[in-house]
């Protein structure tokens, strides 16, 4: 058994239910597995949100609940002394609140900033995947059904943005969710095996709008847009919709992309964009061929 959480960024509406439920569980209460989370300053599940786009004509946000990844081979465990960080048989990574005292290196080692340093107690702290509740036979026993035993954040999520379960069981809800979605590890965790999986976290989009010559005041529906990355040889195709809009998502980051817009009877339009960030390439007005 390998317990994990899958985070579906597409479904996350940044409603902060997970954030609040986690604080409700851990702020001010210690357990065998963790010291009390301070009332302010730590976010064991943090809703990281960034704006995507450089023009009001095409703006989105990415919302990525970020918690300890419960790595298979945790960077924090490597720097920990006297076994202060350990991995349980179920895969949950725990920082021992006693043994970790004074070991700021544990917090600093986390590649995604999910381990917090408690200045007052001089300990590193993070998500326990609510292992203390999963272990407790008293907790939620009244429902009599172990399937209801899930971490607080997962229980509180109204939007199917968080899944919990056994990664080793291909029929578990979490395994199915992972199989059916685009798995998008957080950049600093690239190449690492983790028990928390991120799904559908966006990379970069390019988008634009195509119009007939300006004086006509009409959008072009059905213009073909071809994107080419010379460096990798990849191409992408899109078509303008009923608003004349086109968009290509999940482009590779930091590449030069050539954009070619074609529409029968009109001159093709070419431009290029660098995918350092999400770009709106602009309102393109076609000219008669």
């Amino acid at each position, binding site marked *: 058994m390998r317990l994990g959480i899958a985070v579906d960024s597409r*479904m*996350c*509406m*940044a*409603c*902060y*239910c997970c*954030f*609040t*439920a986690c*604080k*409700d*569980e851990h*702020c*001010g*209460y210690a357990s065998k597995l963790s010291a*009390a989370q301070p*009332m*302010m*300053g730590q*976010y064991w599940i943090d*809703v990281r*949100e960034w*704006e995507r*786009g*450089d*023009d*009001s004509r095409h*703006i*989105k*946000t990415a*919302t990525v609940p970020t918690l300890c990844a419960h790595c298979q081979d945790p960077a924090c465990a490597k720097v920990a002394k006297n076994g202060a960080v350990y991995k349980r048989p179920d895969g949950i990574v725990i920082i021992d609140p006693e043994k970790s005292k004074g070991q700021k290196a544990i917090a600093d080692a986390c590649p995604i900033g999910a381990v917090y340093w408690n200045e007052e107690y001089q300990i590193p702290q993070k998500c326990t995947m609510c292992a203390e509740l999963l272990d407790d036979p*008293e*907790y939620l026993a*009244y*429902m009599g*059904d172990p399937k*209801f035993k899930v971490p*607080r954040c997962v*229980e*509180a999520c*109204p*939007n*199917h943005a968080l899944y919990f379960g056994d990664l080793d069981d291909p029929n578990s809800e979490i395994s199915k969710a992972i199989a059916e979605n685009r798995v998008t590890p957080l950049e600093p965790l690239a190449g690492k095996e983790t028990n928390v999986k991120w799904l559908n976290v966006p990379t970069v989009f390019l988008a634009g709008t195509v*119009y*007939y010559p300006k004086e*006509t*005041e*009409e*959008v072009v529906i059905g213009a073909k847009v071809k994107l080419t990355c010379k460096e990798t040889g990849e191409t992408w195709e899109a078509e303008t*919709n*009923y*608003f*004349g*809009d086109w968009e290509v998502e999940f482009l590779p980051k930091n590449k030069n992309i050539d954009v070619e817009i074609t529409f029968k009877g009109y001159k093709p339009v070419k431009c290029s964009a660098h995918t350092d960030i999400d770009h709106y390439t602009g*309102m393109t007005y076609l000219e008669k061929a």
Partner: protein
Amino acid sequence: MAEKITHSVCVGGPIAIHTVDGVIRRIRPIVLDDNDPKGWVIKARGKEFTPDRKVKPAFIALTEKNRAYSYDRIRYPMIREDFVETPDGKNRNAENRGKSGYRRATWDEALDLVAREIKRLQATYGKETVTACTGSHHSWGLVGYKLSTFARFFRMLGYTEIKDNPDSWEGFTWGAPHTYGYYWRLGGTEAFDLLEDGLQNVETMIMWSHDPDTTRGGYAGSESTLWRHWLNDLGVQFIYIDPYNNFSSVKQADKWFGPRPGTDAALCEAIAYVWITEGSYDKDYIAKHAHRFDEWADYILGKGVDKTAKTPKYAEAETGIPAADIKALARRWASTKTMGGSGMRGGFGGVCRTANGTEFARLMIQLFVMQGMGKPGQNIWAGTTGAPMDYNFWFGGYSDPLSQIANQPIADKTAVNCVIQKLYRPNVPDAILDGHYEWYGEGFCGGGIDLEFTEHIYPEPGYNKVHMFWRYGGCFMGTMLDTNKWVKMYKSPELEFVVNQDIHFHGEARFADVILPACTNLERYDIGELCNSGNGGYQSHSQTGNSWQIVIFQDKAIEPLWESRSDYWIFAQVAERLGFGQEFSEGRTELDWCKRFWEKSDLCEKISWEDFTKKGYYVAGVPEEWERHFGFRWFAEGYPCDTPNHKPCQEEGKLGTFTGKFEFVSESLLYWAPNDEARTPIATYKHSWEGHHSIKARKYPFHLITPHPRFDYHTQHNESTPWFWEIPENRVYINGNPYLVARIHPKKAAEKGIKDGDMMLLFNERGSVLCVARVTYRVEENTIHAYGSSGIYNPVDPGETSMDIGGCVNILSPGRLIGDMVPGMAPNSTLLDVCKYEGPIPDSQCFEYKLDAVAKDADPDAESCKEIIEGHGFEKIQAKVRASYLKKGAAAR
């Protein structure tokens, strides 16, 4: 040390409360068990949709524990330090209200003083000298709600009632009934069973000034978010129109349009222009169901009095949206099955709270009418209500007169107010300060269109003015208009005596002479249904905003903290002192009253009182083949109305307008208000009296919009829940003060030299508010966006109309109502300017910290506010309560 689990329901949704040894340990969603009924199944486009087996609160509900042990709890009855009980009500240092500190009082001392003052004032000036007003929904439950306990007390006492304005509906209340009736729903539409219709048929959703994940179906928590994900997965296109690319839009929109605030009505006109000129509207439907359509069409085409065709180019100049895009929008709408609306119940969105609010509401409805409103997939439905429900199960909601302890049959005797004088909430300060005020309408005019035109004057002939104000729950500084007026009012000696009864030390509490500490929902008994605002009331069947219909026994989880008491106890004590204690209570305890609601509803036939209180909730299942009554279908197809909230006119197949049809020229306005310039018989786009065409725009070039808040509910949560101050899109905690985030477009920010995260001052002639700048492309170029309803109010000079650092942006909004005959508020028609703030940043100056002195006086070991916010105060409070609980328990054993 077993955990006790009780349940409750609040404005953020239903919750399960885990309590250990007399202290609340955690707050969870309610997860349904196998004994609860099966959920409905909607079949649509080859798929089946059924709700998850948990009832989904919003994040605000998950903080109820923290709101109970919050730093700003009013712990003891308090009396203003420099209050003097003069026998004539004069020389009471009224000018120091808002500034002075407080001393602790005993309950007897405070209650005796309140009773003495009521007697003195009413003997001197008459019953009408007392007035009282509540915030909306600072608690949930049919016993504690303002129309129950509060109303019972004050109606028995006799008082000048303050009429609420329909502050979430405005444009819809005062506009929509003149187009399609539905005054009994305050201008909102009927969305019965439209979730199924939408899932089966709709192709395009128009979300106009609508942020469903923020307004959350009113009180439905997060219940409907998944429905919109379902629609998304079916390929339904979502088009959002809002000057702010709101939180639902930015994650979900296929297209976002950001019109200049207050110009939405011009966009409506241009869409109609495209349809009329291209012939792309439902002509048969219009011929059959519309009244005087051609006259309106002439106006749109430029054949009206103004001789201006409402072309997309004309709308481009007003809204800033390119004409080509407007045409594309109009064509997508006309060529696909389209549903949508403004705000969570079809009407509600921020645009209805502009100077143009009534005109927008009417024009938007007219657009939906032009595409055959009521036909499958063509309707006003905003994706937030209309789930299947069992219409044959009745449990009362808060606005049902049948489910209020003020009335029969819940009470044996109905409480009746003997005073006819009234005040109008937005203008209470004007009335008190000027001694005179006149206005139209009854506020909530659900009883008939004519109620919009009743005439009121204060003081009523033969009546005396008001000299005592009893405020109960919430903070109007954050929700009303030009709210520095409230400061001036409180400092006026006209108010000889001010009482404030609240749970938390809100911005308005500090202006009171006597403060009475109420307890939270978790510390008393109550009973209520999730999101039920009343099946006979103005939001009938609002529970269809939930996936589950659930009635909850709001058990007392813990004893009232410190010396707080339930609202019911407080009113009963004052009633006792005034000699009507028995009449008030009818000998019932709060638990007895709860049982009355069970007994007088269908609940008693479904579950015994013992089982209900033991389990804590009851889920009313939906039969497998449930009755369907699709909203408006009856009208579109021409049969008598079959929806559950109908009126006699509808039984004849007619709407609630004069003609029974959709009125494109309003006969009711021609009859009652033919010369009203703000709301003309033909709905038209009008320049705002405070907008970009105003002279004032030369000095204050930005529009401020203050929509209903995402990170709060009215004013309830932000002040009491410091965790929310750590949400970067909400507030930023600097030097012990939580500053509100205000949003500005990058281009304008650059012109002003403002960077993201800078302190930004919002100001106009009415006041100034210090915020933190969020520089974002999500906001229209000429717009400053900052959420309204700030629960935090912190002027740097307490008690003065000085710069506020609490984020109380309503200080900046105009006091002016929509029109002379349209008494709705228009806070989204505010002009202001902004600048980078480089002055001193105050250090920990929250007024709430004044509570520390009283707390320390009562208990030298008491935790300070700051310690509760940032340190171990919360843990210490819980430890103390636990120790005292265990000690009492030992004594009992």
